[in-house]
């Protein structure tokens, strides 16, 4: 199996943990993995992304334009930003979430519905994940990453088994948050 996956969002949304969980799950299945993440100043509210490449014969962790099988978007504007990397016929799973940049609060903001319309019109294989209800039911808005991971797992877009993802979570999430995270990843059935 060869899979190129891009995770994208805004610093602080938990893309890094989700990326590590996918890599750990792939390694559990004995697959070679390479990945790269945004670290440093951009984490302070900037655009962040992770590239994950699973499979044999991969030279570099970076995914080229038009090469991603899956874009997992944590934020609508950021999802659209990564579309040039999506392969023809690739899948997009996007959270129905908009994070306004501070500059937008000062200058008037951007319209998330424009992004949603653009995604609907341009991505044939699109899943928009409504997360507000899940936040309410789970009592936390900090599980966005695991909800999206769960959605990707549920739609079979990761090419990884539920078992390996669950055990990656068990091994990588602090015990205090484990129960909540396990619930979140299995929220969409």
């Amino acid at each position: 199996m060869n899979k190129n996956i891009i995770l994208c969002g805004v610093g602080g949304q938990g893309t890094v943990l989700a990326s590590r969980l996918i890599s750990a799950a792939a390694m559990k299945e004995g697959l070679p993995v390479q990945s790269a993440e945004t670290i440093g100043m951009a984490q302070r509210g900037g655009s962040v992304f992770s590239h994950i490449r699973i499979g044999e014969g991969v030279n570099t962790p970076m995914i080229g334009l038009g090469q991603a099988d899956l874009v997992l978007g944590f934020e609508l504007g950021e999802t659209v930003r990564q579309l040039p990397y999506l392969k023809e016929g690739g899948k997009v799973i996007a959270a129905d979430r908009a994070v306004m940049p501070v500059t937008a609060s000062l200058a008037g903001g951007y319209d998330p519905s424009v992004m949603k319309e653009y995604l609907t019109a341009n991505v044939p294989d699109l899943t928009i994940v409504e997360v507000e209800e899940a936040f309410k039911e789970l009592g936390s808005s900090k599980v966005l990453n695991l909800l999206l991971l769960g959605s990707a797992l549920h739609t079979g877009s990761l090419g990884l088994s539920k078992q390996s993802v669950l055990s990656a979570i068990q091994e990588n999430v602090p015990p205090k948050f484990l129960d909540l995270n396990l619930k979140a990843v299995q929220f969409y059935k």
Partner: protein
Amino acid sequence: MGNEAIAMGAIAAGVGLVCGYPGTPSTEVLETVAKHRPEDCYVEWSINEKTAMEVAAGAAYAGTRVLVTMKQMGLNVASDPLMCVEYVGVKGGMVVLVADDPGPISSQTEQDTRTFARFSKVPCFDPSTAQEAYDMVQEAFELSEKYGTPVFVRPTTRVSHGYADIEVKDPEEYTKHTPEGFIKDTKKWVIFPRASFLNHQRIEKRNQELTKELSASPFNRIEPESESTVGCGFGIACGGISYTYAMEARKELGDVKLLKVGTPFPFPEELALDFLEGLDQVLCIEELDPVIERELTYICNKYGMNVWIRGKVEGYTPNAGENTVDSVKKVMARFLGKDLKTPVAPQLPPLPVRPPVLCAGCPHRASFYAVKKAMAGKKTLYCGDIGCYTLGNAMPLDMVDTCLCMGAGLGIAQGVFHTEPDTNCFAFVGDSTFFASAIPSVINGLFNQADFTLVVLDNSTTAMTGHQPHPGTGRTMMGKTVPAVSIEGVLKGVGLTCVETVDPLDHEAAVACVKRVAAEKGVKAIIFRSPCIAVSKPSGKCAVDADACIGCRTCIDEIGCPALFFADDRAVIDEAQCTGCGLCSQICPVCAIAPAGKEARHE
């Protein structure tokens, strides 16, 4: 992670002392050693890179294998001891890990440690992958001990922060290394002009010999061409992460002959001669300086070879910024005269711009705002520095007029004061930066009768690089709790008489403090003390009383907190982000924002 691989490689090589100063993208190397450290390995975050280099040199003099870590900017700070240690030499293997930052993504400059290697005459390894980084560190220790020289390992951001599954040694296979101890020998360990002349000759001879020895290293190699490209006359030369991009491009463009350079200095000259044989043109693909390109040009000249070496010098490839999978594929296709199947770029709608900002609840926001309010209408200069608080430059705070390098704000404030004494000069510096490089400039200002206000933004951690301890935190990397060094004590100890400490989240008190201290003459200091939100518990959430809010936007327009929004003509607080710092509730003109756990104060 590449940085973790470097750390594990050092442990496998029997490293006995690891020190350094945090800096993106190098930080995780030392942290990983600290996490997995064997019992006989000592680890410290040093006060700055110069001290770290000296601590490392001392241990290496005593025969310990040492690893000293920093980012490329830090190498400038450490260059004084390093230039000299290269002449004096070491006994235990000494690996200097310097992470470069093409882009630059989180640095002030795009300087190239490979160029520094030539300048300092220190051999340099340049890994392309995490696996290679792991292997190279171990080889670097061997080379260092064999020749008694420090050795650079120089990853770039994409290697340092790239992840891959790698093969590692079992602990039983680790090298065991017992240091001999320091043996007195003034002819060796005391640097003198006469000895340096002889050492200079020795180093030049050694590096010349290394061009042969390193030609046989597995880190330098020629990737064979396929039958279809034999005799085409084109070659690619590359190193670092660009090697992985070029190998990816070869899949599509054909297996053209390729030279991979893993030791840019000393350059593998014999191998390069083999590579150049039969070629008409070579495209050099590298980030930052044209190091490989200049070496190949030099070799062609030296041996009278007629090969056209192409790259940055003539503008064929970009001379600044990062390479990408796509940029390398594109330039290789152009060079080889091949058509590329490029995906059609979609026309995207206008996207939100997201410059990095101070976190919601960050105490630095309150500190900057207090100074801004206190000094409104006065002639001021705000010198910023390196750390999260550089982000105080963003609108609407707009409180950073200058930023140069670690600790520079204090000197700049003094220089401006001597030129225009009527300006109220402020130098903002973080707690870690204060200890790293601000103290000599405080004394300089005091001695030379400058007039400026030092503002120490003490959030009790090294926040930007991921919360490393420093002398003010009283915790060491060996897990010990030690007496914390007091910033007030240091300032008063060197002779400052006006030193005030205040909580920046108490807005009224903070403004009054700034007014008081700024009115004093000479060098005076304010310490804004409030912990980073990432190392302290949130105190609850603030809430806007929508009925009381008059929609004046003061909170949004004045402080630029990412947790504050404007919707339906009212201010709104994003609960997921708010930490309850309460700054907005203190500046709301109609008291419509309730501080954490309290009611709004409006009537």
